[in-house]
């Protein structure tokens, strides 16, 4: 055990954690909206819209995140037309490519979580709203969405943790996130165990925090007070 290395690498890894957290929060933020959008499309009765939303979630859940990042980072740059548009400003940055890939990925999982939450809402609740003369729009925004969000909290908590682990793939497109810096230290010092303990500890600490925050929210918003 090389404790000196553990002490000296800790600040470096902590600095890299900021990159990980930035990637995570940005992709979760955009992913939540994307997921909600596609979950609503899934509930649409039009079969084409429905199938389109299903296809999106099927493709992004059926392929590895690594492939998705590589297609966006290495693949899209190949299209000559894209290089001339303003999109190129975003797509040439590995940081934004990673965020786009993570957003699309977490959006697919989130849409499934929200869809099943919408479907488990008891019809009686919606009928009660209707019989009170509340308009469909308000029923949707004020009754269905809050209940669906509460229902999907445990599953969404898992998704946040999975996404946090997913951000480690940013290191494959040259970003120096927590895993990227850990790999760099390992490959220069050849002390994998020490670095793994420190970096893994930071990841576990983040998992612990996310887990407890979700648990707290579940309790706070539970139906039985």
């Amino acid at each position, binding site marked *: 055990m090389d404790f000196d290395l553990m002490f000296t690498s800790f600040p470096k890894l902590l600095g890299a954690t900021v990159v990980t957290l930035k990637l995570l929060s940005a992709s979760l933020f955009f992913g939540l909206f994307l997921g909600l959008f596609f979950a609503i499309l899934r509930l649409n009765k039009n079969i084409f819209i429905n199938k389109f939303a299903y296809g999106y979630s*099927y*493709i992004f859940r*059926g*392929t*590895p*995140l*690594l*492939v*998705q990042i*590589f*297609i966006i980072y*290495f*693949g*899209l740059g*190949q*299209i000559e037309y894209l290089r001339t548009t303003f999109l190129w400003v975003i797509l040439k940055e590995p940081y934004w490519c990673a965020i786009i890939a993570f957003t699309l990925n977490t959006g697919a999982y989130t849409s499934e979580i929200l869809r099943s939450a919408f479907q488990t809402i008891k019809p009686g609740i919606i009928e009660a709203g209707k019989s009170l003369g509340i308009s469909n729009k308000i029923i949707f925004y004020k009754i269905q969405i809050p209940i669906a969000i509460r229902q999907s909290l445990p599953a969404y908590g898992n998704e946040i*943790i999975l996404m*946090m*682990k*997913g*951000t*480690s*793939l940013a*290191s*494959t497109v040259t970003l120096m996130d927590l*895993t990227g810096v*850990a*790999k760099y230290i*390992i*490959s220069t010092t*050849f002390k*994998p*165990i020490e670095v*793994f303990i420190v*970096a*893994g500890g930071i*990841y*576990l600490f983040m*998992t*612990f925090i996310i887990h407890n925050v979700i648990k707290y929210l579940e309790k706070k918003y539970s139906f039985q007070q």
Partner: protein
Amino acid sequence: MELLAFGKTGWGDELFYATLMTIAVSITAMLVGFFFALIFTPLKLSKYKTLNLVGNFYTTVIRGVPELLVIYLFFFGGSGAIMYVASIFGYYEYIEINAFITGSMAIGIISGAYSTEVFRGAIQSIDKGQFEAAKVLGINKFGQFYKIILPQMLRLAIPNLSNVWQITLKDTSLISVTGLVEIMRQSYIAAGSTRDPLFFYSFAAVLYLLLTYVSMKLINKLEVRYSRGY
């Protein structure tokens, strides 16, 4: 299309063998995972607090740390650990472990943590009466487990195990960082030499979709088979 031709001109045969490699690694990893699950599930269900702690430590750490980090640990640490053991026996030459073994061990340990959770959940949801009935009938512990608990547990576990299989299959793409030539690595090589990354990575995505689709179909059949009589 000529990019996918078989033989020396295209990448068809290379990608075909790479797909076989992905399947081989996934199956090996899944089996390694079962082996770990077989050890850690009893620990998690044990009456003793210390054994519980060991079981929980395994599943919490592996499920809370990125897969890539675990793979780096095995990739960089694997040969070091083996060489250390060998040096005790007086062997000081450099030992390199096969990328296939490192990869399937790393993915296997990850997959094992998920399998452990699935088995634990399945055993816990078996009716207590089944255990008691087996005891009353005087069946020994071994028979209780293999003839009564295991068949019922498998039925409950298969839907969740199919999720674990999907996760494992997708995780194998991460082994490409160690240089094992599976779908992802082969696409990387092909993309580099033809300067056509968009095509090859999209094709890799199609291959993965195909693998998940076919395996889901097979697992559904298995599910029907094991829920006969319910």
